[in-house]
Every structure is written in C-alpha cells, then in structure tokens.
C-alpha cells in the first residue's frame, strides 16, 4: 500500500498552461480573418420573402448584393422603391451595367444576390436583370429566408 501512496504523491498536479496563449492566439487569428466588420448601411427597407427549396452560397467573397425596396425616410416612413448597390442609391438604372461590369472584371465568378423587398413589383427587378444581362453577370440569386412550415 505504501508503495502506491508514494507514487501518487510524486505526480505533478498542475496542468502546464504555458501553451494556452498560443492556442488562444490561434483562435483569435482565425476569427480575425473570418470576421467581416464592414456591413452595408441599408438605405432601403428589405423584408425577405420565404421559400422552401433554397440553396446556400458558401463562398461569400463571390457575392455582390443588390438591394431593392422602398427608400427609408425620416420618422420611419418609406418612400418609393429604389435600388441600392453597396452604399449608394442608384438614380439611373442604366448605370448598373457599368458598376456590375467593373465588379465582374475583379471577380469573374461573381454571383449577384438580389435582396428584394417582398412587397415590390417585379418591373424594377426586370430592369435590374436586364442591366445584369448587359453587364454579363448572369449568375444571380434571389435572397430568401427558409420557410418554416
């Protein structure tokens, strides 16, 4: 018995923590790299429509967003339906083809995600789609949420 006791008394109880900062830093660097801090400030109101048969876009870097919805005004009122790309509202629909063509040159596998308010009429979406066709950005995606039954 005494033999066992002696052995257990000898073991070091403390867990070595000297590698902990390294592990923490590794995690830290991972999250720093994956974080996208800059989010676009929405100037139009978008309520997503829902659908069941949706797919995921894993490669976020390929995606460029086009927001279509009623413009946000003061006192939480909304105005006419407008198109927003990045941080700017688009006044001239015809300008979209140049914006998108430039984006396509930077990223040839570009996917344009259309984030359209569910109350919108389809005419403006058609206009944007025609512009996208002129720009050559043919891969699009209608952003929807998953419909829970």
């Amino acid at each position: 018995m005494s033999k066992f006791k002696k052995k257990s008394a000898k073991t070091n109880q403390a867990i070595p923590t000297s590698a902990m900062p390294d592990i923490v830093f590794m995690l830290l660097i991972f999250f720093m790299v994956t974080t996208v801090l800059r989010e676009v400030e929405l100037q139009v109101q978008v309520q997503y429509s829902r659908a069941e048969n949706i797919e995921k876009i894993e490669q976020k870097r390929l995606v460029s967003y086009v927001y279509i919805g009623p413009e946000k005004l003061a006192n939480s009122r909304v105005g006419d339906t407008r198109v927003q790309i990045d941080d700017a509202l688009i006044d001239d629909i015809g300008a979209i083809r140049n914006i998108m063509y430039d984006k396509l040159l930077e990223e040839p596998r570009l996917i344009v995600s259309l984030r359209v308010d569910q109350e919108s009429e389809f005419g403006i979406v058609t206009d944007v789609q025609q512009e996208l066709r002129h720009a050559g950005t043919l891969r699009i995606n209608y952003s929807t949420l998953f419909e829970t039954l």
Partner: protein
Amino acid sequence: MLKKKRNRETPEINGSSLADIAFLLLIFFLVVTTIDVDTGIGLVLPPIPDDIEPPPIRERNILNILVDAQGRVLMDGELTAVVQVKDKIVRFVNNNGADPELSDSPDDAIVSIKTDRRTPYNIYIDMLDEVMGAYAELRNNESMARFGVSFDALNEESEQYEEIKNAFPKRISIAEPD
C-alpha cells in the same frame, strides 16, 4: 550607485497577462463574427441575344408560365394555383414522350417564365420555389431509384451527382420582357 540599480532590474517582461488580453480579443471577435450563409434561389440569366437565331424548339417541349399583374399563375394559358405548379412541372418534365402535349424527355423540357411589370415579387418567388421544388423532387426520385440514396446526400463532386444533374437539367428560361 546607478549601475547597481540597473543590474537589479529583471530583463524579462511579465507575460502572464498575455493570455487574458488574447482571451479578451478572442471574445470580441467571437461576438462580432457572423457566420451566416446567404440563402436563396439561384438562377442563371440568359445572355443578351446576339444576331444568332435561337435553335428551333418544338412547341411540346416548352412550358410557358406567366405570372400576371394580379398575381395569377397561368401555365400554357391555363389558370393554375401556385400549389399545383410543382405537380404540373413534374408531369411535364418526366413525361418522356408519353403525352403528346408534354415534353419529349427531361433533357428537352424547358420551363419558360414570363412576368408582368406589376407582378408581386413574393408571388413570383413562390412560383419559382415550386419550380425548384419540382426539379428537387425529380432528382431525388431518380437518385433513390439509381443509387438508393437521396440527392442531397450525394457528394457534389461525385460522378453520381453529375449523372443525376445531367439526367434532369434545370432548363429554366426567363422570357424577354416586352
């Protein structure tokens, strides 16, 4: 005297708080990070037509879907409820020449979608959702019949996935606006 003092200083920086600082930053980035994936219905727009004439397509191989300004869905001119769109497309695509009104084969079947300028967007999405659902069902059934696993379970780079995908290609065309 000055020399003596300098010798007493410890040449090492105390690094025990390094882990705390790193943890603090880690928690900040953990909170800030959003690993949300964008979900939606993917589609490929047709390129702007050149002077080249599109190849002739037999009338039976085209299913025209029109969503009008009131949000009504018309399939080949026939008023259809949105919930019936899926079944109709499944029958149309998977006809394999049986019904002379419907498609020759899944490979030839084209679903053409036309909208009005005043079509409500959410009805369009509901309709498109049904179309996608029809193809998902067809692919799933085919995958179950051929390999005994659901289509979702197949690896996207595997040969089986390609085989099923090619057996039921999504030929969805957006009609030219007026």
